[in-house]
């Protein structure tokens, strides 16, 4: 079953989810183009997992509409999706190959499809020799890889990853990133959530930033940065005695690390004026004026009242 290219892989229309008195997701709308890598960004409690669970039909929205692969979300879509929840787990007592076959079968795949897929993925993870062993025998890193394989072994059209990089060591993080990029190249749409902005910056083409259950920013990376409308200056400096970074013209916020600092500039502030003021106070060995990073935007968003 293919979906026409112009239909978004995921569409949230004014979606709201409440738990008792608490509104976890409040009027969220966004679209995920087919074949893209889409980031859902936000701090803990921003509504990322709740949004993803509604996407997966695990939660039902209290208001609005969730469409996945061109259809109103329901159980019948699940075989076409792959989902790696934030809280992940495997059947520890099962043998690796047997467990992967089980995860493939509950997605409706037959053994003719699964056999080569399992072989391929086990080779990718380097677990081929372990296929007959029990899951509990694996190291933590190995079982994290296996968890990912269990998510994708059935060949999903849409891959949903909730905080996929959390708890991974740097090596496994790169392995997972490569796997995600490979699937992306093969045409799989990827939606992932994270609170680590650097990862989003590296990976996603489009994103939304959630805070307090509401969308604070959305679009492509460039659109989000441009919408922020302000710049940041990364500096390396050594001030004259008695001088400080206080009260620089056009600077709204200073994140001082000692030898380096990030200066957030007010909307429309002149970078050159800031540099002049700095040079007057000491030696500036680096002055890097650029668009704000997602991290800075995120900090502003998360700091702002929801």
């Amino acid at each position: 079953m293919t979906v026409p290219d112009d239909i978004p892989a995921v569409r949230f229309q004014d979606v709201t989810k409440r738990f008792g008195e608490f509104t976890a997701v409040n009027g969220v709308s966004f679209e995920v183009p087919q074949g893209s890598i889409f980031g859902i960004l936000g701090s803990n409690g921003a509504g990322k997992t709740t949004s993803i669970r509604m996407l997966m039909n695990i939660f039902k929205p209290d208001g609005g509409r969730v469409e996945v692969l061109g259809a109103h979300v329901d159980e019948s879509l699940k075989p076409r999706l792959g989902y790696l929840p934030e809280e992940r787990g495997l059947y520890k007592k099962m043998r690796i190959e047997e467990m992967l076959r089980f995860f493939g079968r509950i997605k409706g795949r037959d053994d003719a499809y699964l056999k080569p897929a399992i072989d391929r993925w086990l080779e990718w993870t380097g677990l081929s020799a372990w296929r007959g062993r029990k899951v509990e025998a694996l190291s933590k890193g190995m079982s994290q890889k296996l968890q990912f394989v269990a998510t994708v072994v059935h060949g999903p059209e849409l891959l949903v990853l909730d905080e996929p990089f959390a708890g991974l060591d740097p090596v496994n993080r790169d392995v997972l990133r490569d796997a995600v990029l490979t699937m992306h190249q093969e045409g799989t749409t990827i939606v992932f959530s994270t609170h680590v902005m650097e990862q989003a910056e590296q990976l996603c083409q489009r994103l939304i930033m959630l805070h307090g259950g509401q969308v604070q920013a959305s679009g492509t990376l460039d659109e989000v940065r441009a919408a922020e409308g302000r710049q940041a200056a990364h500096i390396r400096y050594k001030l004259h005695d008695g001088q400080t970074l206080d009260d620089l013209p056009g600077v709204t916020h200073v994140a001082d690390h000692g030898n380096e600092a990030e200066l957030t500039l007010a909307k429309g502030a002149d970078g050159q004026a800031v540099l002049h003021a700095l040079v007057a106070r000491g030696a500036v060995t680096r002055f890097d004026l650029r668009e704000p990073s997602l991290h800075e935007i995120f900090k502003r968003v998360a700091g702002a009242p929801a």
Partner: protein
Amino acid sequence: MNRTWQILKREYLENVRTKAFLVGLILTPVWMGLIFVIPLLISAPETVRVVIVDETGSLAGPLREALVGTATDEGGPKVPTAPGAQPLPRSDSRFDIVLEPAEGAFDPGPDGTSRIDRLKQEAGTNGEYVVVITQAVLEKRSRKPDEHEHGIYGPALRGMGSPGRTIERVITQLVTKRLLAERKLPADLAELIQRRATNFHSIDKSGGKASEFRALMPILVVVLLYMGIVGISQMLISNTIEEKSNRVYEVLLSSVSPFQLMAGKILGICGVGLTLLTFWCSGGLAAAAMQGSSDAVSLVEIVWFAVYYLLGFLMIASLFVAVGSACNTIKEAQNLMAPLSMLLALPLIISMLTMSNPNGTVATVTSFIPPFTPFVMMTRMASVPAPPVWQTWATLAVLIVSTYLAVRFAARVFRVGILLYGQPPSLREIWRWMWTAD
């Protein structure tokens, strides 16, 4: 459907492939067998020491002879065969008789205790019997104030029987015979008085003579049903909690709905119980058939057993799955289980109570109380008389409806519970989930 089947299959295979399953499969009947076999082993003729103190000097001899003749080992009882002689009671024990002189036996010694007292103390320590015979015994009356106290002293039970009762009956028969002779009455009068004029036969529902095995049926079916339902479905608590703490549920929810997941789990474990019961029952029936008890069960009863097993299992397993899904640790579950286990012990007790009066008020009323229905009705089905037909169908209707409701409520608790970590929900919260629509 296919997804539920996959979950079911996995659950079944995972539990059937464990060593614990094999152990349960084989050891349970062995253990049940031991309960029956061990007493038989214990009851192998045992030598019981009997000390006789006979003040009259006339009964000890005949008593010794008679007691030695009661032992049933080697070729059966050596019952006196003289015409008119009354048969002696049979005993599983072999008696080792010691005749203790009665002279001075009752006189208190320097420490205030008599020889009789010391004999009783020894009997208490060694499990012996002390028989004290006085003139009052020969006349079948209680003693006069100036006479010594007579009686048989010893432990209540030894082996399968009570040697004390055997001695009591033997003495009674001997004395009766003697008294009849004194009165010039025929010696067989005593036997005539004691002899049964006819015999009682227990029958089955069709009026045929019920075998011994058949008579045990009401107990057997309810114990099997109880083990199959309550024993097996308890696995679902720990199993649900374990998988919840493994965090595997949300992964599964990306493929199946919560209801499919719950249904697959319950039916998978139900299959485990069904495997065990089928194995045990066919083994038991085969053993019964070999012993010639071909009337052990009817096909109709097997069908009803299956119906009650399935419905009862669904109802009680739903309860356990709900409890398991709401808890994070076994310890939390145990707190919730404490009141539940007391409730769940009731069906077994009530079924036992209804056995003697299968159509009485208690049986009829409890048949209509859902958690008890399968157990009580199964007991009644296996008993005589059979329950009225209308009750059979009415209780089945109650059972089906309540099972359906139990499954639905459990599904609602399960759906919320499996994704909930941290503080366990209060009963009030669980109550609220139960009434929250999908």
